């Protein structure tokens, strides 16, 4: 190793900036949509402002703009440090960074223009699908290339999750988007009928699983021990839960199709696998809580850690609620109601956004070699994020349970008691509360954007070289936590530097 070798953090910084921009824009669209459900006239008669076009813009902007940019940033940041080498092919990493943003931007515009495959979370048409595949392969080359050139024998557990994310999302994306193009903006899926639905929800649920859960668990497993300055409570449990998670999640998709025209045994399989999934999910939560429980002294001075603690709590809630809603007798009430929207947002706001915010508050000041611009703003952001999430999910619980009862209600001659429009009209108060929750959450995100951009403003990233590694860490498989760059503690893992 030469002294001139430095980690490539410039690309990480840029990806963080893009992620913040997409977070604000994506959530702004979400708030607009929440308002449209109360005041439909807010589309001003414009097709591109209609709910049908803005909704995929919101989900794609948040998942692929905010989420994936954050995952790429944190994957690049952590894989260098856990492998003790700079990024493999750094120029390709820059191509991944900018190429991804171009796809998200142009893809978003195409959704506004009405180009859509109509597959949820895979709405982008075939030219974008091909572009995504190319960029994703480049991402894989940089990530796995860095791991292949690592100077430490162990592959730290966060890299297993990031690696799982890259491989499985590639597989899902390619298989689900196989289609026959008929023009530049229209293609038809090669699957038909029930097969199309099964493949779509095999994709849809595992996009949630391996991107919004697995990818962000990679983030958790690197940044939580770093922030808490504690080894992972049980490294073995983290590895066991990774394999249990990977094996189980892939089967759970059919729970999105309960009572639909797919074989009942497929529905039952999806339900059972969803229930089993609770075990690895909660194993991870317990591992995280036990890790952070020893770091309580840092809570006074570290706003980032508060976000992580809260993220773990909502992770526990969402990963319990999901399997519960996959039970067919519960799903018959909850399906197609706003309960599902509340569940998704307890995960998206409470888990994904919170863990990302905590990570950004940790990572940005360190990368820039300075203090956070304002700890007070970060603390205000914490309470706004908590209040916004709670308002959101409570309002959706109320709305969802009401809708479930309304839609199943039949009169004495067996006809539906309420029309769809009656039910929607009675939802206005809940939607008002949801709009308020969304606005509060967005306000917090804007505060974070200001805080972090001020922290970064006018500064370059600090030049960090890979530290010298002790021979026993470089060559041993006995102390995986020591990959974090420090002396192992007695018994379990090691304390991160």
């Amino acid at each position, binding site marked *: 190793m030469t002294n001139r070798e430095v980690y490539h953090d410039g690309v990480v910084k840029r990806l963080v900036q893009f992620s913040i921009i997409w977070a604000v824009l994506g959530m702004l669209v979400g708030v607009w949509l929440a308002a449209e459900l109360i005041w439909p006239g807010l589309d001003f008669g414009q097709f591109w402002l209609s709910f049908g076009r803005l909704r995929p813009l919101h989900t794609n902007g948040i998942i692929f703009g905010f989420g994936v940019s954050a995952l790429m940033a944190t994957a690049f940041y952590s894989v260098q440090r856990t492998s003790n080498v700079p990024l493999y092919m750094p120029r390709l990493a820059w191509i991944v960074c900018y190429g991804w943003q171009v796809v998200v931007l142009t893809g978003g515009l195409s959704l506004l223009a009405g180009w859509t495959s109509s597959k949820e979370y895979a709405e982008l048409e075939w030219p974008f699908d091909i572009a995504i595949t190319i960029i994703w392969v480049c991402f894989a080359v940089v990530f796995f290339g860095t791991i292949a050139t690592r100077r430490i024998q162990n592959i730290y557990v966060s890299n297993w999750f990031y690696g799982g994310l890259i491989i499985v999302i590639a597989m899902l994306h390619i298989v689900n988007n196989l289609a026959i193009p008929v023009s530049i903006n229209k293609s038809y899926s090669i699957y038909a009928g029930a097969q199309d639905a099964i493949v779509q929800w095999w994709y849809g649920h595992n996009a949630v699983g391996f991107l919004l859960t697995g990818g962000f668990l990679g983030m958790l497993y690197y940044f939580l021990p770093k922030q808490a300055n504690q080894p992972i409570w049980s490294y073995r449990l983290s590895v066991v839960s990774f394999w249990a998670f990977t094996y189980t999640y892939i089967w759970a998709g059919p729970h999105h199709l309960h009572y639909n025209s797919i074989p009942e045994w497929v529905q039952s399989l999806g339900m059972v696998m969803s229930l089993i999934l609770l075990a690895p999910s909660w194993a991870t939560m317990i591992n995280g809580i036990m890790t952070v429980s020893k770091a309580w002294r840092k*809570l*006074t001075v570290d706003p980032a850690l508060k976000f992580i603690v809260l993220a773990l709590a909502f992770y526990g809630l969402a990963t319990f609620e999901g399997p*519960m809603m996959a039970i067919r*007798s519960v799903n*018959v009430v909850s399906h197609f109601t706003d309960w599902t929207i509340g569940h998704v947002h307890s995960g998206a706001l409470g888990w994904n956004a919170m863990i990302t915010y905590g990570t950004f508050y940790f990572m940005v000041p360190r990368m820039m070699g300075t203090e956070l611009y304002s700890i007070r703003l970060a603390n205000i952001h914490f309470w706004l994020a908590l209040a916004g999430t709670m*308002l959101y999910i409570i309002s959706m619980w109320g709305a969802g349970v009401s809708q479930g009862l*309304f839609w199943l*209600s039949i009169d004495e001659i067996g006809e539906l008691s309420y029309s769809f429009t*009656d039910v929607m009209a*009675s939802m206005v108060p809940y939607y008002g509360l949801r709009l308020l929750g969304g606005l509060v959450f967005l306000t917090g995100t804007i505060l974070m954007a200001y805080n972090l951009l001020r922290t970064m403003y006018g500064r370059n990233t600090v030049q960090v070289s890979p530290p010298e590694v002790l021979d026993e860490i470089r060559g041993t498989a006995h102390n995986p936590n020591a990959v974090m760059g420090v002396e192992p503690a007695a018994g379990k893992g090691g304390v991160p530097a």
Partner: protein
Amino acid sequence: MPGTVFQEIAEGDELAIHAIHRLTFLLIILPPVFAWVGSTVFGWRLGSADPMYFDTTGRIIISFFYAIALAFGYISTVLLASWMALTYGAKADLEAIGAMITVVVAPLSIASIAHLYPQVFINVLVMIPAVIWSMNLLYRGLPVVMHIPPERGMLMSSSIVAWLLVAFVSLLGISAGLWTYGIGPSVGV
């Protein structure tokens, strides 16, 4: 004042702890009673739709299971907090923890007066500030009663909040399951 009450519990003031324990039963029984009266007089109201009325047996079953669920929630939270105390280096006996949880849930139980008019949105509106107040009491009271620093108390309180959220969502799921099997409101399943 809650601060003084928590201090008295922490100091093991038996008079105060026993006085609080006497309230526990009342606080558990209030919400089902309010729900029973509300569903009898006004019926369940979901938005603008006609109210739903249940027969006497149905109302008794729902209120009974509601009381059982609340009692289970109370006892399990006390036991869970006692178990978590090992992890967080906290010290408190079951009596003190029970008294603390009673104080914490008091706003929620009193706010359940909204059940007298079982319109879902009104109940949601009334319960939200009550939830915030109860959470505030938990975060303030737990470190005092359990004799741990506030930062460590914040972690332990968050763990309990996670448990309570899971317990609440379980209640929703169990309710939905029971409706499907014909207990509660009549649904066309």
